[in-house]
């Protein structure tokens, strides 16, 4: 109980107060200590990669043992160890096989997945973007003006560019600021709750 709940809560409280206070103390000693803490955090963050790789390997080995998605699991493991091996033993510079595989395999695959969105968005907009009521009509007109105004069409149609800029800089900016202030207050409230041990979901409920 002490190790699993009390100690983590004490650590969070102490480090939370220290981290918060250091932000406002300009003394060189405080800055130096803050810098040390930053370097610790970077080192601790590296353990997350180790944890992620371990979890990935266990997951796919279990899949193979159970006979579930065996082919895909083997591909994932071969890709993981293959790329790691290439990077570790054959170099990672711009002419390396590691970089060539990344640029010519990984990048096009990822970009292809993402570019499919353009097709879905076009089809969805055509079927669902309807001026059903006043609000929907306003949204539709605003979207069209902003899309055209900030594109190359706005370069030749100054009124369109100006209208789009006004929409972005006045109503859009106002609502964004409102949301940001709300989010900021929410973050402060949640942080205080975590530091004081009121919010404990981060410990697993």
């Amino acid at each position, binding site marked *: 109980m002490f190790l699993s709940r009390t100690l983590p809560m004490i650590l969070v409280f102490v480090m939370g107060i220290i981290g918060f206070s250091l932000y406002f103390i300009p003394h060189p000693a405080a800055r130096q200590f803050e810098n040390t803490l930053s370097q610790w955090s*970077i080192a601790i963050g590296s353990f997350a990669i180790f944890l992620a790789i371990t979890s990935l390997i266990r997951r796919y080995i279990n899949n193979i043992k159970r006979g579930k998605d065996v082919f895909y699991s083997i591909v994932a493991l071969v890709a993981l160890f293959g790329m790691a091996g290439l990077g570790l033993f054959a170099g990672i510079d711009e002419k390396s096989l590691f970089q060539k595989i990344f640029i010519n395999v990984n990048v096009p695959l990822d970009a292809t997945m993402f570019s499919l969105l353009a097709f879905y968005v*076009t089809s969805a907009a*055509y079927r669902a*973007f309807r*001026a059903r009521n006043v609000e929907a009509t306003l949204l539709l007109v605003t979207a069209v003006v902003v899309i055209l105004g900030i594109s190359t069409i706005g370069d030749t149609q100054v009124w369109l560019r100006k209208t789009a800029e006004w929409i972005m800089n006045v109503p859009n900016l106002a609502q*964004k600021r409102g949301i940001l202030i709300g989010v900021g207050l929410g973050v402060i409230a949640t942080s205080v709750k975590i530091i004081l041990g009121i919010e404990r979901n981060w410990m697993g409920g």
Partner: protein
Amino acid sequence: MANNEKKTTTFLEKIGQIPRFWIYLGLLVILMLPLILRIKAKPRMGMETKMVYDFIDSLPPGSVIMLSFTYGPSARPELEPMALAIMRHAYMRGIRVMGMTLSVEGTGLGLEAMTRVAKEFEEAGYPLTYGEDWVYLGYKTGWAMVIRGIGGDFHETFPRDYYGNDTRKMALTRDIQNYDDIALVIDFASGGSPGSWITYAYQQFDQKVAAGVTAVMGADWQPYIRTGQLVGMLNGMKAAADYEAKTIEMMEKRFGYTPKPYATVGIVSVTWAQIYLIILIIIGNISFFALRRRRRR
């Protein structure tokens, strides 16, 4: 008369039900044509882009700027041309460039972008020296802690570059202690990393920060320009095309060399696709209203 009306209504209903196959095919053709025919746009630089351009243009030769390639392949077509254009501008002004990334996927992309511009300058007859004109630091895990770490001690945060060289010994990096020695940080981001640069680098260390973001994220970061927390912003493919066109023109004038265009071609595809989308929305709405009118009758 009644027959004619019935026929018209049927047609208007039909245009609201174009099969997905034809919509996809239309989009594919529209996207591919400018890329195949290499149709280039001649864009005019927008205000937010010009703010970044002017800031870099005002830096004295020898200054150091830092680029953060915090994006993955999905955002590459929008963000990489921005990074290439900014590097070209910086090198032509005698400004030195450090690259790094806070995203694992950005590691290879950052390396690709930096080496590509170095190769362009070599082909143009103005070779750049690694370690003096440019340095690639690679990926560092920790996000906000890395940003804070640079403000504390640059060499502790990045003791070695991507290739394993000691940053204390390289000409470009040996004199860099913290943000005081970095004139500008530009974060090319497909996520929320500009927020971390603003919170930790700008707010805590008064570091000048600019952002290059995808078009869908542009509205999120606009409030920070008005407050001066960002010196400017490159927003989507349009800004990339604006900056690229300017730097290509500069390189042609100075070296008689034309770098390969990406965004100035891509923006034509994007604009055509946007017009296609708007036309489809209008067609869909015409059909919707026709159908609604008939139902009311």
